[in-house]
């Protein structure tokens, strides 16, 4: 059966209108639309992007032609963006009870991967998980905004975040009952670590380092979540900002490493959080 030109045009028009609507609303078309588009040789994704560009062009023109007094970027936001871009540590405000640090430049990832066989397996008490920790070369950055947030505020802001309780190992850095949870939102790739039970560290000697295990990645190569210090006994809040995609976090681990963090962990795991 062939499609008459008028039918084709009507169907194509309807699909294009649907793409235009989706560009404005964020909706997605139905699979029936997708099938129809395929049969007509119309690339709906391309159509959507074309209309998104038109809408963006209009938005830019409207802003340029109608700029308002409050369009100036707040200074505090500029500071946060600078931190996000990897500005020097001095530009980042310290958190009240923990001192997240920036990540030093490191060697390219490709030269740092360690074959599984070359590393000793590490059986954790809460589940035998073989770890070969590596640094991803980009690390994560502390986020000053999240530093001031409570876990409850974080969950309110990121209702789809995962949060799992920490479990301590027999590592000597675990100095009391381990309490708190790791909170992480894969969409914004931001998180907050609430930890109690870790010993304060001397950052000139050693630092704690977070590793994020992603179901979408080889479990031997977790994502580096950054280094941090515990400056006082008791509860600490550590903000996290991953700069690599973490699609489906399945476990968090905190190791004890030399200052600045490492590319391949000594596998001295202090605490772990998992479902």
């Amino acid at each position, binding site marked *: 059966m062939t499609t008459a030109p008028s039918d084709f045009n009507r169907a194509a028009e309807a699909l294009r209108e649907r793409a235009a609507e989706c560009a404005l609303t*964020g909706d997605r078309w139905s699979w029936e639309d997708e099938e129809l588009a395929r049969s007509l040789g119309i690339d709906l994704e391309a159509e959507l992007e074309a209309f998104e*560009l038109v*809408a963006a062009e209009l*938005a*830019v*023109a*409207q802003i340029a032609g109608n700029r308002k007094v409050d369009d100036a970027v707040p200074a505090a936001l500029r500071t946060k963006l600078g931190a*996000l871009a990897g500005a020097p540590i001095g530009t980042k405000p310290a958190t009240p009870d923990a001192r997240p640090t920036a990540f030093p430049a490191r060697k390219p990832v490709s030269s740092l991967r360690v074959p599984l066989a070359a590393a000793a397996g590490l059986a954790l008490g809460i589940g035998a998980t073989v770890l070969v920790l590596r640094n991803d070369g980009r690390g994560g950055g502390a986020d000053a905004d999240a530093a001031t947030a409570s876990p409850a505020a974080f969950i309110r802001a990121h209702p789809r975040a995962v949060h799992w309780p920490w479990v301590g190992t027999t590592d000597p850095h675990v100095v009391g009952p381990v309490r708190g949870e790791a909170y992480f939102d894969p969409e914004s790739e931001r998180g907050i670590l609430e930890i109690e039970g870790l010993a304060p560290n001397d950052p000139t000697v050693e630092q704690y380092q977070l590793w994020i295990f992603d179901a979408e990645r080889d479990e031997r190569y977790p994502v580096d979540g950054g280094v941090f210090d515990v400056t006082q006994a008791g509860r600490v809040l550590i903000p996290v900002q991953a700069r690599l995609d973490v699609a489906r976090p399945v476990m968090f681990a905190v190791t004890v490493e030399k200052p600045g963090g490492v590319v391949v962990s000594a596998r001295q795991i202090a605490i772990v959080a998992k479902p």
Partner: protein
Amino acid sequence: MRASATLAARDPRLTDEPSILARVAAGDPSAPNECIARFSGLVWSLARRLCSSPSDAEDAVQEIFIDLWKSAARFDASIASETTFVAMIARRRLIDRGRRKMRRPEVPQIAETVEDRRDRVDGTELSEQQRLAQRAFEQLRPEQQQVLQLAIHHGCSHEQIATATGMPLGTVKTHARRGLIKIRLLLEQQGVLSTEDRARIENAAEGAP
């Protein structure tokens, strides 16, 4: 970037200077800060208009720049200007945030929507590309302008627009999509936009009242 449409880079800055986004994608350590310096004003302005509060907008801006750096490799100067690409990525994130939160900004007073000059900063000048886009917009019917301005500039849902304007929901949707289609056609006719399939766009635009 996959698009059948091409927005010509008309702003000389976009062709004379190296692409910041290409440098971000290539790992140039200074590029993210330059990207922020150049586009944070635009992204903040978009976020302020589509977010419910300044703090929400601040969170959104940070997310947008992370999105932008991840998407930087997809930028193609032959398809769109950097400014347009950045605005597109920003709008995607802002629309997505709005949908996730299931709440939209308050619907502005209709009197503000078409010509709001109260807080305008004097001396703002449009680039040639922006002027062409604005001119295309002004060629729409007033109802289409009103609907698109509420949708794009204020981030209103179709339902909110229907409530605010008193138009039936179906009419709002029709004005929105046909207005956007017509602008796409007008931009193409003005040389700002070229599509691979102009005839079909014209057919769609002909249906517009």
